[in-house]
């Protein structure tokens, strides 16, 4: 049959070239040519800001305000806007405040956004491990701060949701269901904790967004996301939700067997930025971790944001001046061999 084909009728292509092109197309389409996607991506650029903050009783609002300004966020972007701050509240344990974002970092962020013109700031979380969100809110110390500041706290675990098509397409989840309150805000800010993680390597501003997925649909501890793959889910949530800003509490972070059982680690920093992948890559370098060896960050590179050192303009403190290696546990596969050399 193919012997009847006239090569010249195909715009000068020979039959052999056509067959090769077709075969290559099939291979590409089927994913047989396993060239990492990042080689087809356009390089991106972003900025992150690092502030030295030695302890929680310093002026955190001032540090965050300075960072937001340094990152070029204009007053038009914040004037009259409704800002949702999403902390990292997972569970509480006596003597382990380093599990969760410190409440004074939330207070600082609230003050900073209001100072810069935001009309309303609220705090919302759906803890991964506990069904009793109010208990985590109370025991973490956040209730004291928000009650005093008259800021509303929203429980995302029991909030009905709206579906969006999964824009990340890394997992088999066709859609993602986000809490309805997200349709009523202008900015979503991940206010994360700087921690190592025993499954993902690190948990920073991107992984923190697991907590936005309502427990009533995703279970406790967000079973559907674990089933779909933690790394896939991190990428899918971030690609679909498109959060606007990140603040990472590294004043006292967690090292070793994070995100719950690790030890406190004073890094004395806050890290801020518009791009969550870029912020997390900067956090990794501060923690002495190679972001290219943290799988979900490597997969996010130049897609959800750049993670290369040369692609992230550092504002505030230089990374080298604040780097402090977080302990890694070599027997935990996700932490094996990820040290930044």
């Amino acid at each position, binding site marked *: 049959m193919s012997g009847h084909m006239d090569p010249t009728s195909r715009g000068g292509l020979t039959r052999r070239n056509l067959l090769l092109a077709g075969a290559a197309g099939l291979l590409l389409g089927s994913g047989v040519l396993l060239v990492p996607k990042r080689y087809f991506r356009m390089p991106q650029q972003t900025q992150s800001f690092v502030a030295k903050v030695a302890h929680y009783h310093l002026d955190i609002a001032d540090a965050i305000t300075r960072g937001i300004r340094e990152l070029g966020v204009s007053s038009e972007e914040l004037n009259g806007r409704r800002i949702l701050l999403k902390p990292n509240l997972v569970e509480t*344990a006596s003597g382990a405040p380093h599990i969760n974002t410190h409440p004074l970092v939330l207070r600082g962020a609230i003050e900073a956004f209001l100072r810069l013109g935001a009309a309303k700031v609220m705090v919302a979380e759906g803890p991964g491990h506990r069904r009793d969100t109010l208990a985590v809110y109370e025991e973490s110390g956040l209730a004291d701060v928000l009650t005093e500041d008259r800021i509303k706290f929203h429980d995302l675990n029991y909030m009905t949701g709206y579906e969006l098509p999964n824009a990340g397409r890394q997992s088999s989840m066709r859609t993602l269901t986000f809490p309805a309150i997200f349709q009523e805000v202008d900015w979503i800010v991940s206010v994360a904790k700087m921690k190592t993680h025993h499954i993902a390597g690190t948990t920073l501003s991107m992984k923190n967004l697991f907590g936005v997925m309502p427990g*009533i649909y995703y279970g*406790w501890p967000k079973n559907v996301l674990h089933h779909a793959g933690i790394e896939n889910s991190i990428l899918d949530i971030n690609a679909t939700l498109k959060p606007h800003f990140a603040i990472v509490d590294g004043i006292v972070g967690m090292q070793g067997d994070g995100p719950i059982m690790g030890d406190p680690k004073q890094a004395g920093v806050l890290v801020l930025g518009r791009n969550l992948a870029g912020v997390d890559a900067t956090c990794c370098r501060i923690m002495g971790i190679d972001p290219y060896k943290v799988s979900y960050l490597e997969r996010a590179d130049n897609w959800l944001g750049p993670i290369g050192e040369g692609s992230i303009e550092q504002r505030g403190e230089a990374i080298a001046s604040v780097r402090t290696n977080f302990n890694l546990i070599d027997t935990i596969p996700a932490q094996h061999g990820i040290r930044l050399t």
Partner: protein
Amino acid sequence: MSREREEAFWPTALSVLAWIGSQVHEPHCSQGVRFLLNTTGNHWKKGPDDPFGHDPSIPGWPWIDGMHSWTEPTALAVIALRATGHGDHDRVREAIRMMLDRQLPHGGWNYGNTLVFGRELHPMPESTGAALAALVCQVEQRTIARSIDYLQGEVDRLHTPISLGWGLLGLAAWDRWPSNGAALVERCVANQARYGEYDTSSLCLLFLGALAGERDMKSPLLLDLSCTQAPAVPAQ
């Protein structure tokens, strides 16, 4: 919940409990019981590289269809099945074994992980209360004594309705409703000034915990969970 999210079936056990005793809802109740008896989570044989401590092969119930079984949905299903007279069913027996396997070495339950990478995780009052309520008169007290101790040590620190409600129900099930239980409930109700109004289900849970002490009821959710009673609600 919504009809569009049928995989999130975890309220089924609560619905069964709500329908008990209502003739109008008897068909729904039976349907709910059948569903529970015919539904389980995702289970597998533990592999040598699995980092967690529990036995993932023992069937219980998940929050969401197709997921692994966890403490609270299993406890709720056990309570619902026992309350409808299916306490002797194999599924209930398996689930009790599953819950005992998930009990933390130093007492209490959490959402359902015991150890990960060799480290024992933290217990949680709401999970512990639900498990203790489900296990009443199904296991010997010595097997869960350390969990009662944990919850008794925590109860004074519970300020919120889900933790306190389940905490009181769990302790009441084992005749340990605290002498200051009423004061704890009053404090929790007053905390609405701090947290905002509680939703109806949280408030109901809290008051069930309160009633468990007032009436000196041994059984969880104020139902008579006799170990040997015949099915009050047929499964088929």
